[in-house]
C-alpha cells in the first residue's frame, strides 16, 4: 500500500517531465519547420519613421523627388498594371489630388512593373495626372519590401510616415486618415 502510494506520488512528476519533453520536442519541430530563418524582409514598420528619401525621373520626364514635397501631406502609392485592386484605387487617388491638392495633398504613384510601356498606357487610360515614376527592387527594399500590392503610405507634412495600408483596403479609411493629416499644421 505504501509502495503504491509513493509510486503514485512520483507519477505526477514523471507526467510533468513527459509533458515538458513533448512540449520541447514540439517547439523544436515547429522551429525546424517554420521560422528558422531571419527573413531580410520581415522589416520593422515604417510607421512614425522618416519616410525613405528617393528621387526618380517621372514618366513625363520631370523629376519626382520626395524631399521637394516636404510641407505637404504625401500619399505614396506603390502599384502595378497587373494589380486589379490598384486600378480601383488610382482613379480615386486622382480625384483626391484634384479635391485635396489645394489643402496640401500630393499624390505620388510608383509603379512596380518591369516595363514602362504598359504603365504609360494604363496611366493614360485612367487619366492619372499626378506624378508617376517607375520603382525597382532597391526602392522596394527602402520601404521594407514591397512584396504585395497595393501598398499606400501617408506621409505627414514633416516627412514622417503616419499610416500604411496594404492590400485591398477601405478607401474611406484612407480618406479619413488623409483629411485628418491635412487638418494638422
Amino acid at each position, binding site marked *: 500500500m505504501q509502495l503504491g502510494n509513493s509510486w503514485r506520488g512520483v507519477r505526477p512528476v514523471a507526467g510533468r517531465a513527459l509533458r515538458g519533453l513533448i512540449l520541447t520536442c514540439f517547439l523544436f519541430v515547429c522551429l525546424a519547420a*517554420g*521560422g528558422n530563418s531571419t*527573413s531580410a524582409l520581415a522589416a520593422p514598420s515604417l510607421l512614425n519613421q522618416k519616410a525613405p528619401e528617393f528621387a526618380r525621373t517621372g514618366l513625363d520626364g520631370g523629376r519626382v523627388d520626395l524631399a521637394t514635397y516636404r510641407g505637404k501631406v504625401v500619399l505614396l502609392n506603390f502599384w502595378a498594371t497587373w*494589380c*486589379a485592386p490598384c486600378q480601383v484605387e488610382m482613379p480615386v487617388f486622382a480625384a483626391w489630388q484634384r479635391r485635396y491638392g489645394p489643402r496640401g495633398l500630393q499624390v505620388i504613384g510608383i509603379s512596380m512593373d518591369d516595363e514602362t510601356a504598359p504603365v504609360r498606357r494604363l496611366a493614360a487610360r485612367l487619366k492619372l495626372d499626378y506624378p508617376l515614376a517607375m*520603382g525597382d527592387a532597391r526602392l522596394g*527594399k527602402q520601404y521594407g519590401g514591397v*512584396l504585395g500590392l497595393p501598398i499606400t503610405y501617408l506621409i505627414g507634412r514633416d516627412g514622417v510616415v503616419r499610416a500604411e495600408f*496594404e492590400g485591398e483596403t477601405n478607401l474611406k479609411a484612407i480618406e479619413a486618415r488623409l483629411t485628418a493629416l491635412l487638418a494638422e499644421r
Partner: protein
Amino acid sequence: MRFRWIGRIAATAGVTLLLTIPGGAKGQAPGAPQSSALSIPTVQRMPPQDLNRLLHTREAEKPLVLQVGSRVMYQQAHIPGADYAGPASTPEGLKLLHDRVAQLNRETLIVIYCGCCPWAKCPNIGPAYHELRRMGFKNVKALYLENSFGADWANRGYPVATGQ
C-alpha cells in the same frame, strides 16, 4: 450488426468517391475563368507552411519552385532556389514559363507562386497553373498566398533570397 457494416461500407464508398472526383472539380469556383486564381482547384493549393516544411525536409524530394510574377518583385525577395519564370498574365511571361519547363518530365513536382496581389486578384497564378496542366504536368501545386508574398511568406519568417 450486419446493417451497421453496410452503413460503414456505404460511408467509406461515399468518401472514396468524393476523393476520386477529378481535381478540376474540387473546390473550384464555378465559372471562374482560367485567368483567375479562383479557377485553381482548392486541393492543388499548397499552404506556405507545407512548402517550407518540404524544402527543409532533407529526405524529401524537392519540388521545382517557380515565381510567375514580375521581375521587380522577384529581385526584392523570392523563395531560395526558386526560378524566375515571368509574369504569366502576359504572352512573354507565359512563353518564359513554357520554355523553362518544356524539357522536364511531366511527373515533376512543380510549385508555382506569385503573391503580387491578394489571391483572388492575382492575374498570374491562374494562367501559369493552366499552362502547366495543358503541357501535361500532372503534379502542379500553387502556393496559396492569401494576401501577398510579403504578408504570407516573408513576414512570417520563412526564408527569402534576393537578387536576379
